[in-house]
């Protein structure tokens, strides 16, 4: 990314009014789009109690607690405003209705009844790392992560391989029915996936691939978009290169593997990024194929985590953050290739 682009202004020394307007506009856009994501990340570090706090705070605060002699568990600390007395920190032993039973830590034996309106929780900045740790320890999160990664990586590699082979044949070979085959492939784009959902399920079932990661990978490997994208790019590779390679004793496979595929690298990068995005976020196909918990992908796990009566929001948020990370990283490092890949496809 070109950093100097960020500081380009119209005015030379002082900012022109259009510069101010541009920056305001960009700032508003940044806050609107990035704000919720930032809130999500911060909230994922809050305990469940902190999540339910009103008014909500941006940074994760947890209530301080103190071990008081005579009690096994640490007791939550409150700042108590009693009439006629200076505010002091007191630990709460219990609460019934509107009255809280509290003790002064200095005098653990004396209990005082305090109305709940007179107490304010004492909070400190605390990151609840336990949200993330519990995911891997208590819940089978590592497994879900592995499933998602496996499906995404393997499916992307297979997609690149098969789509490029089809595109190579459709762009560089003349054969009867070439146009018809291409039209057929493109026309499948018109079919909504929901219509073929049941037949796809029946086929996967018949192939014995239910409840298997391969049952999620294989059905969607051949994508018409991918074939189209790669074919259009490969059309721009000069035929003379292939003829020269043929005269150099290259077999058709070598021409594909050593000439056409390396030269299609920009288009392959674009397809890889699309494929990673589709596969990582894919919900429908894994939902119908995978019903056993140990094969769940991250998306299915997120869905399963929302119980009917009770949702543990802190774990859900932590899971969401982890689910967002890989695709964000892929994009951050490969975004250069998206623009150059698409741009080159036009220029060449």
């Amino acid at each position, binding site marked *: 990314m070109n950093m100097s682009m960020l500081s380009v202004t119209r005015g030379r020394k002082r900012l022109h009014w259009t510069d101010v307007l541009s920056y305001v506009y960009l700032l508003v856009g940044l806050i609107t789009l990035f704000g919720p994501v930032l809130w999500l990340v911060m909230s994922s570090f809050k305990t469940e109690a902190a999540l339910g706090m009103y008014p909500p705070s941006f940074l994760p605060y947890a209530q301080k607690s103190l071990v008081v002699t005579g009690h096994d568990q640490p007791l939550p600390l409150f700042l108590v405003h009693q009439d006629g007395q200076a505010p002091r920190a007191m630990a709460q032993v219990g609460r019934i209705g509107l009255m809280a039973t509290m003790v002064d830590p200095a005098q653990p034996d004396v209990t005082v009844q305090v109305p709940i309106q007179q107490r304010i929780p004492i909070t400190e900045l605390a990151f609840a790392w336990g949200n993330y740790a519990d995911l891997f320890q208590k819940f089978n999160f590592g497994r879900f992560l592995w499933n998602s990664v496996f499906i995404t990586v393997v499916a992307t590699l297979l997609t690149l391989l098969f789509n490029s082979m089809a595109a190579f044949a459709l762009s560089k070979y003349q054969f009867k029915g070439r146009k018809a085959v291409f039209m057929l492939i493109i026309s499948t784009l018109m079919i909504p996936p929901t219509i073929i959902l049941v037949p796809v399920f029946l086929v996967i079932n018949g192939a014995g691939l239910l409840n298997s990661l391969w049952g999620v990978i294989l059905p969607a490997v051949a994508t018409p978009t991918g074939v189209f994208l790669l074919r259009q790019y490969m059309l721009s590779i000069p035929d003379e290169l292939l*003829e*020269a*390679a*043929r005269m150099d004793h290259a077999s058709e496979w070598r021409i594909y593997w050593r000439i056409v595929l390396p030269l299609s690298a920009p288009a392959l990068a674009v397809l890889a990024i699309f494929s990673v995005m589709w596969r990582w976020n894919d919900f429908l196909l894994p939902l119908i194929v995978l019903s056993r918990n140990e094969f769940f992908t991250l998306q299915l796990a997120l869905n399963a985590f929302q119980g009917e009566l009770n949702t543990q929001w802190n774990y859900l948020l932590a899971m969401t953050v982890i689910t967002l990370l890989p695709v964000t990283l892929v994009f951050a490092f490969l975004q250069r290739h998206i623009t150059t890949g698409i741009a080159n496809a036009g220029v060449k």
Partner: protein
Amino acid sequence: MSLLKLRAIDKSFDQTHVIHGVNLDVQQGEFVVLVGPSGCGKSTLLRIIAGLDSPTSGDVWIEDQRVNDVSAADRGCAMVFQSYALYPHMSVYANMAFALENIGESRSEIERKVREAASILKLDALLDRRPTQLSGGQRQRVAIGRAIVRNPKLFLFDEPLSNLDAELRVSMRAELRDLHRRLGSTMIYVTHDQVEAMSMADQIVVLRAGRIEQVGSPQALYNQPANTFVAGFIGSPRMNFIPISSFPEGANALNWPVGTHTMGVRPEHWEQAQAQDQGTWSMTVQSVEYLGGQQLIQGHLPCHTRIEVLGAGEPRVHIGEQLSLQVKASQAHAFDAQGFRLPRSLL
């Protein structure tokens, strides 16, 4: 034994008949140039020889073996394309080594052959560069190097110099002639430039509309063109064609054969004559082009047939002047009504 034989080669693309009944023999070690105007089928013929296209009918024989069904790579030909067709993602070394890798040569053998070819073409310093980092002339040499490395029976060149600038073209022509002499291999060269053909070839094949008009050495084509097309195509500036109706009085002294319809005289063969001599041609000068050591005088005969005269030295003629011209009988060509050459008895 001819290295290459073409017998009755015909080629049609759908409804378009591109090549008509071509017969050709190429001997070992010859430099043959296929020349002709654009669209005459010379590149198609080259591709048929290479095996990249197959003829609609007819046979291709290489070293007395019918190779119609043999693949391009196995025919023992190497081709240098007009656009060089270098693999842009490979280094120069890899470009030249590709063919040898495909046939499974050992690493050391490949290295030796590539370095040998590179030294012949002075590419030693460029072996690690990519084609995009080379100039046009350097790319040209890499393309030739790629062909040399395979040690083929037959080199095929498809207009290799047309993408270079004029000066580079002249120097590359000399280099290619030199290369031919050094390697002693058979080369078939396609071009539309008759200057290249004349300067480089042992044999020239002139093609028009898919038919061979004439095959011969540069001297034969220059001195005895078989028809008006070859006569007008070879030699620059173009030959003057004068219809018989324009002949002046006394021109019959040149013994024109029966059926002469057109006379052909090259601009450089006109000579100054005395006006009163018999059989002289009178030309009215319309313009003079100064070409340095020569001058191109353009004008017309009394019957308004336009002719050009290439004279040596500084211009001393003026516009509107009348020039008296004559030509030696051996340098005047007679063509019949169909444009075919008529043999003339020498005086």
